[in-house]
């Protein structure tokens, strides 16, 4: 695993997130569920907790966008780049953006939102890319045959716990 240069991380354990808009590809509750599940992946192995807010500022703002979307980091249309996210910090930092030119799905028939969200939210928490192909933080999208059996690799766990420590309640 690697962390961002300078090792930015949240200096608190309770974080807020806000879903700014929705993809037309999925029902809203499917998006809500994918994001909540993605945050839980990290919550389970750290002291971090998350609560959702629907107005005002949030630590992690989640949005769907196409092409130029105001951060000088435009998306590229269908395929290739699926999303990006910023390391912990104020303002745009911590935010996760998803390319709405992808076909987002809850299963593996298109691009699975949960898998990409879990990866991007790893960036939002301070993880950079991993060179371990079995890691969630490996930069290339890996379709899982059985999503129900998803689990973080040891490399991901070591990475996030190097920033926040473990979940003492386990």
């Amino acid at each position, binding site marked *: 695993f*690697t962390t*961002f*240069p300078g090792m930015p991380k949240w200096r608190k354990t309770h974080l807020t997130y806000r879903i700014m808009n929705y993809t037309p590809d999925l029902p809203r509750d499917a998006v809500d569920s994918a994001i909540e599940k993605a945050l839980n992946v990290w919550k389970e192995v750290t002291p971090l907790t998350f609560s959702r807010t629907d107005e005002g500022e949030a630590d992690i703002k989640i949005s769907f966008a196409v092409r130029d979307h105001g951060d000088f*980091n435009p*998306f590229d249309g269908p*395929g*290739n*780049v*699926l*999303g*990006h*996210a910023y390391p912990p910090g104020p303002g745009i930092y911590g935010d996760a953006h998803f*390319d709405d030119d*992808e076909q987002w799905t809850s299963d593996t028939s298109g*691009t699975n939102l949960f898998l*990409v969200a879990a*990866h*991007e939210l790893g*960036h939002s928490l301070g993880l*950079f*890319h991993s*060179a371990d*192909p079995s890691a969630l933080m490996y*930069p*290339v*999208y890996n379709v899982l045959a059985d999503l129900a059996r998803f689990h973080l690799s040891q490399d991901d766990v070591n990475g996030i716990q190097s920033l926040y420590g473990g979940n003492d309640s386990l």
Partner: protein
Amino acid sequence: YPVDRAAEDENNNMELTQQYLENYYNLGKDVKPFVRRRNSGPVVEKIREMQKFLGLEVTGKVDSDTLAMMRRPRCGVPDVGD
């Protein structure tokens, strides 16, 4: 015609490689076009760095496995930081 097609494919592959290395491996946009075309010096080093990071065989050449990897969907955050 087949010769032209091969040359066109090679150009496209180099274009893809340069873009990929610029986006994700900090290849300087100021690397001279001649160096880029010849696929030498800093470009080869960056190809090797990319192959090593992504778990590919490290050849320094844009082989079929490397091309296939560069065409796969991925995260837009670079693989190496500065």
